[in-house]
């Protein structure tokens, strides 16, 4: 059992996507942890607020001083480094909380069935029928700017996915014998869910969570990009891209002149999302029983 598990973990790390994904994640973790040394903030100021380095609002291409260039009077390099922390914060907080909540809803619905399930699933359907980005935009606008509000909005509109997954798993497992056996012995409901159902659903949920991590970071960035995400000048990749927006969209054929405003924060974001997707891919290859050949 343990040697089998160890072998699975070995396969997880040895697969191409697993290796690439975990390496990238490790890299981003190091960047996030070492941010104070990689991009020292001015003394006594909130490090997440990008300091003003230039007085001219015009963007400046990369130079020896500002290696990723300057946008909106701010050093892009500084924003990319400290933005890593924001990305982790948004991704992990939203994924963990929405997954927990989804687990709760899915577990309650799937386990009790009948009317409870019907009502919970109707509510889930309704939430799924709302255009996600629009709803998040409305909520973030109403709550006001700030990363915490983005997180709230994303949680509010993304718990349905784990809820559905876990419910499906529970319905499947419920059919199986050992639950009946456990119930006849007289274990209570919560005990059954915690001891029998959750361990069996943990891998599908993990796979989904790591895949969702990427898309959540993208959505959070999209909100910032539309100008309703993090507070202005907050170190956040989407916010950096928002600086680019006006120059790119208004710039006509000049778009190319401002490439650095898109390429550096964009690359950080793509690699970050890619890391999670690769990890999710590797997890699925190793743990999804349907794909075993």
């Amino acid at each position: 059992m343990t040697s089998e598990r160890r072998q699975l973990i070995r396969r997880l790390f040895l697969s191409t996507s697993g290796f690439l994904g975990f390496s990238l994640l490790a890299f981003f973790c190091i960047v996030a942890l070492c941010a104070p040394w990689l991009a020292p903030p001015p003394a006594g100021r909130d490090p997440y607020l990008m300091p003003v380095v230039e007085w001219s609002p015009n963007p400046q291409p990369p130079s020896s001083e500002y290696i990723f260039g300057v946008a909106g009077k701010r050093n892009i390099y500084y924003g990319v480094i400290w933005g890593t922390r924001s990305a982790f914060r948004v991704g992990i907080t939203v994924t963990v909380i929405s997954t927990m909540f989804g687990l709760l809803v899915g577990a309650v619905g799937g386990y009790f069935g009948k009317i409870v399930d019907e009502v919970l699933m109707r509510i889930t359907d309704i939430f799924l029928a709302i255009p996600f980005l629009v709803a998040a935009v409305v909520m973030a606008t109403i709550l006001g700017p700030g990363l915490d509000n983005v997180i709230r909005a994303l949680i509010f509109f993304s718990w349905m996915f784990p809820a559905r997954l876990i419910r499906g798993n529970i319905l499947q497992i419920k059919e199986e014998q050992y639950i009946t056996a456990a119930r006849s012995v007289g274990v209570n409901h919560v005990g059954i869910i915690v001891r029998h159902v959750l361990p069996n659903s943990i891998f599908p949920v993990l796979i989904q969570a790591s895949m969702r991590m990427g898309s959540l970071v993208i959505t959070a960035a999209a909100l910032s990009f539309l100008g309703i995400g993090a507070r202005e000048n907050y170190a956040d990749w989407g916010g950096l891209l928002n600086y680019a927006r006006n120059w790119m969209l208004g710039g006509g054929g000049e778009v190319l002149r401002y490439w650095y405003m898109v390429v550096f924060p964009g690359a950080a974001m793509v690699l970050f999302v890619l890391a999670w997707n690769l990890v999710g891919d590797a997890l699925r290859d190793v743990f999804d029983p349907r794909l075993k050949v």
Partner: protein
Amino acid sequence: MFFYIARRLLFLPLTLFGISLIIFFMFMRLSPEQRVALYITSPERLRGDNVERLIDLHGLRDPWHIQYGRWMGNVVRGNLGWSNVGKEPVYSAIMRRFPYTLELALYSALPIIWLGTWLGTLSALYHNRPLDHTLRISAVVGWSFPDFVFGFFVLMIFYSILGWFPPGTLGAEADAVVKSSQFRSFTGMVTIDSLLNGRLDVFIDTARRLAGPVLTLTYVGFAYILRIARSSMLEVLGREYIRTARSKGLEEKVVINKHARRNAMIPVATVSGQTIIALLGGTVIVETIFNRVGIGSFMATAAQQLDFASVIGGSLFFGVILVLGNLLVDVSYALIDPRVRLD
């Protein structure tokens, strides 16, 4: 079948009711003073006790169920309200923009589904060989691209450098043609209307402007179909009936194209349907970046400006599309797969 469809349709009003409640409650978190801004058309009217008067006039301090009932009453009478963003009634604002979004979604769906299916099948047939790895990696990379980042790259390369795909919906000249009285609108989709009107120049103009957003949506979206097509094909190739087909002496081409593909395409067809639905609601960012007219960019602006009537109207519109679209997908699923019965 009939009862299945009828029962599913019964849930449509319930879903719409739920959507409107959620959005309504989000807006109720705003103070009456904030919400009154929606009714103010010019800054002069903001003076003095005007604000209080307007709040009273529109009943913004009433209990929530009265306010909701008032809105509902209007909707039932067919009045979705006035769109501040569109400067026209919400209903016509949506209907005027929908063809543009539909056009974009359909043109993107074609390459997404085609590419995803083709490459996914290829990937499965070359399972664990270099081609498979290459395709999977490029799909995951595409999947990891935020549409606004990739859209910028498309703008840089295909507009700035090559000058092929300009942003916008229509150029000034083409726009004048479309708005002129000689140009008859059949579908509202400019690519089709321009051809029906025999205006090739308009068609080329609008097609060039569509290419950028289509390219972006395709690259960001084909990975999902590829993944489904690949795993579905792999699963089917391991099935016993494939061995049976081979044991009959059939050519490998027949085994793959007839026996495997038809089975493998069942989940792909379902996901393709869902993709089209998702595309209809997923053009917000692309329309904003490429500066296009459409429901996506309309909703984005409305949401940012807290234009209640437009947001709730648009959300209900998407709700209808989603429910009907999913129903269509499920029904066609039963038509493709002889084992599925709807009841």
